């Protein structure tokens, strides 16, 4: 499971400086910030804006446009459940309902014990072996409520 650092302005400045000179630097920088801190913290936005000569509003607009970028740190694990048609055809909706019930969390929320953040995704390219998911970049296939329970059991 990925280990994220708490917010650290000096570290963020280093991450931004490392990426700011490439053409079209915004997305690579946002990915690098999220890889370091688990999300794109509000404090990072004016720093990115300054480095790229953009307004804070522009950077805010970019961060909120893309589903991948989080504004708050995730739980210890991230479960991305596929919601798209090929997985729907083999029971993804039932798996999603079960995940929400078990974690007592809606989409983009984290279970109360901080273990798992639940996120919807539209297609993981595992459409031949659905319902599919990723848990911390580890692919999961042919999910059933029981199989999901077993996965979540070992994710604490």
């Amino acid at each position: 499971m990925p280990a994220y650092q708490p917010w650290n302005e000096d570290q963020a400045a280093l991450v931004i400086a490392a990426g700011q000179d490439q053409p079209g630097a915004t997305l690579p920088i946002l990915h690098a910030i999220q890889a370091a801190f688990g999300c794109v913290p509000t404090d990072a936005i004016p720093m990115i804006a300054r480095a790229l000569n953009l307004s804070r509003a522009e950077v805010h607009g970019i961060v909120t446009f893309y589903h991948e970028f989080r504004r708050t740190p995730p739980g210890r694990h991230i479960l991305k459940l596929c919601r798209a048609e090929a997985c729907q055809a083999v029971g993804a909706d039932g798996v999603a309902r079960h995940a929400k019930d078990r974690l007592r969390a809606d989409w983009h929320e984290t279970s109360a014990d901080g273990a798992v953040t639940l996120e919807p995704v539209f297609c993981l390219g595992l459409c031949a072996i659905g319902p599919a998911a990723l848990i911390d970049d580890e692919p999961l296939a042919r999910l059933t409520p029981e199989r999901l329970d077993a996965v979540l059991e070992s994710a604490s």
Partner: protein
Amino acid sequence: MTRVFVPRDAAAIALGANAVAAALTPHATVVRTGSRGMFWLEPMIEVETPTGRIAYGPIAAADVPGLLVAGALTGGAHPLRLGAPNAIPFLARQTRLTFSRCGVVDPLSLNDYRATGGLKGLARARDIGPEATIEAVLKSGLRGRGGAGFPTGIKWKTVADAIGARKYVVCNADEGDSGTFADRMLMEGDPFHLIEGIAIAMFAVGATQGYVYTRSEYPHAIATFDAALRTAREAGILYPGFDIEQRVGAGAYVCGEETSLLESLEGRRGQVRAKPPLPAHRGLFGQPTVVNNVITLATVPVILADGPDAYQALGMGRSRGTKPIQLAGNIRFAGLFEAGFGVTLGELVNDIGGGTLSGRPVRAVQVGGPLGAYFPPALFDTKFDYEAFAAKDGLIGHGGIVVFDDTVDMARQARFAMEFCSAESCGKCTPCRIGSVRGKETVDKILAGINVDANLELLRDLCHTMKFGSLCALGGFIPYPVLSAMDYFPEDFRAPIRQAAE
């Protein structure tokens, strides 16, 4: 030690391939490959024997001791023995050109790549020069495999003829359509093939920088492709002064649309640009840019190496060559099937795909991703061809076929289409941004039994507005699944007991 080939494709890993590889490692030289694309047999291992490879599958790590006892390392008999992989009917019926190496070679071995004919296309292009290279692509009849089907050679010629300070080749690897995984499989199973295709495109149009925009939902493809790029750079496959870089998307479906993708690459919100100007004239950073799908570019080396005539000879009508078709959803033999255009939908679903996985009757298939129409079995005589699908108000798109059995509720699927569009709309044009929200609300009213006739008419009218008034294919094509659900499955929109069932 005997060499055993075990896939490292994300789908095979999801089914336990890493544990199988670990269990085999003390007993054999394990070579990780891409996937052959027969996912009901994954993890499928292949043992190298003097008479060729012998496949076993699907294998769990717990099967490994039994396989060893049965002499599987010499091709011995076992209930999971499948025989020669190329003789498995699903593979034997295919014409694998773009995917010829996928599942066969170590995707990160440049030696494997060279030994199986790799880099011949690039060498040929350099021999004959940029103009003749474009001419070969034109002659092959290759059309954009991302879905739009625009002739690749014409796009390349436009960029080659355009004047710009520098030119770009952008590879669209934002494979967002549900039911598609061809780009992912290729990038994980034969990444040098894509690199060679991009290098040929860059050479042909005079570009110095290539970008591959890969979706963030594909962590394995991203890692494999980055590793292959490093190797290609070190080996000097790319001339000095030429480079290819991978960029990662961030979960926006609309970035698969080419102008939105360019905005995203430039570091902005992925909002669609109005055309003209075409990206071929003013694309990335305002410069002439080729934007091609992964499969389009990965087909180019084959065309150059074997000549355009061989490729052109396959297919039907104006759809030339092969199309990697992806069988997905509720289907027994799910996987990748590369064949010349012209196979019927019924053959693909029933004959090759073996019908549903659940064993229930097929009720609907969605072809071409979330923007594709739902076809009932009555349309199964439709041939897989750009024009044949368009004539029936459908699209082949990126070649994904998602099968549903008779438990599907088509009104729900229509609602999902509108909901998906409202979540993924870039917001630039009103028909898509507002229309999708109103469309979802209208389907909800129909589902609740409120003024059903009037609301069905309203929904149809809204679809018409979206189809002809939207700026790009997202708002413009989302009416296809909605209207086809209404036209072919009208009974689902009038179920009186629906609320009770909820």
